């Protein structure tokens, strides 16, 4: 059976060092996907993710286990990425930019559309979402955090989290449906 995060942390606090590698292995890609969504720039995102792990590991003694370890870690990663973004004055992706994707345009409207196609469309839509929305989408769907946990991570009010996630999903849906008009509601 897989060792729980809290068991691993206890082991580290007792002086074991193997636990660090397990936690890295478990969360590396997810933390990186979060910082990448927020920062956009690959090398900076990776540096921010590493920084987040270093900060978290050094502060492990202060983790009170009131929240899930993942929530605590994502909160550190979120704050680290915010700092990086401020430092580098990253320009957010323009949301209203006219989207001209020849690949997408070539896909015929097909009622029995392949899931794989839809998946590609969703990824493109996610890339076009403004970062603050895409960040919440990542936390909710990919990092499996609840509304409450996302509020903890981002420091946003719960209502804002729900509202933004709702809007994000609407935008994603609208983006994808542009290519599949057959799915547009007629009722």
């Amino acid at each position, binding site marked *: 059976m897989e060792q729980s995060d809290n068991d691993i942390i206890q082991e580290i606090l007792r002086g074991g060092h193997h636990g660090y*590698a397990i936690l890295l292995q478990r969360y590396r890609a997810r933390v990186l996907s979060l910082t990448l969504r927020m920062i956009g720039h690959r090398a900076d995102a990776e540096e921010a993710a590493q920084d987040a*792990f270093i900060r978290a590991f050094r502060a492990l003694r202060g983790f009170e286990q009131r929240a899930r370890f993942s929530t605590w870690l994502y909160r550190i990663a979120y704050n680290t990425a915010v700092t990086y973004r401020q430092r580098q004055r990253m320009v957010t992706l323009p949301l209203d930019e006219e989207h001209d994707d020849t690949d997408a345009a070539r896909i015929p409207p097909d009622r029995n559309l392949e*899931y794989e196609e839809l998946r590609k*469309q969703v990824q493109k839509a*996610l890339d076009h979402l403004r970062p603050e929305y895409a960040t919440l989408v990542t936390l909710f769907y990919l990092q499996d955090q609840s509304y409450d946990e996302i509020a903890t991570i981002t420091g946003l009010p719960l209502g804002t989290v729900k509202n933004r996630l709702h809007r994000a999903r609407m935008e*994603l849906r609208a983006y*994808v449906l542009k290519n599949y008009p057959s*799915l547009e509601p007629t009722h």
Partner: protein
Amino acid sequence: MMHPDRNMLRQLADGNLDATEAHPIEVHLASCTQCRMIVAFERDLVRALRETPLPQASPDFDPAVLRAVSRRNHPAATSRLPWVKYAAAGILISATLIVITLAGASGEEQSRSMLTPVFEQITSLIGPLANTFASQADSIIPTSCTQGNEVLRIFLLAMGALLVLGGLERLLLPHLKGLNHRP
């Protein structure tokens, strides 16, 4: 045909409806292709979001983090040189003191060299300190051999210097390390 509210279809797709809310919609879905497609689309949308490919970290990702963390946990482990430094410093200080002592014992006239003023300077600076050490040691270690005091003084002084050096490094090294630590 009366279709269920679109929002209800989405809630159903997300699994947010309880059985009593879901039942009438499911009955409707059995006979309505369009609503079925909408629900299927919403489910695929969520599935696609959950299956977003995760980025691959560079091969140095873990090692860099582990290095940084272990550096903090075991500052001494990062550089094994301090012992060599302490030993060298200790030998140097002891050697200097032995020379000073011997120079003093063999008479000023014969052994006066270019370095003598320097030695005298050092002796005047650290001599009282060494005497204090020696007298402290005398009270702790009652010894009948008075000649041993000289050796003891040198030994204690060397030890004291080592302690000071070690303490300084402990204090200063983390700051120096912190400056060029970047994963």
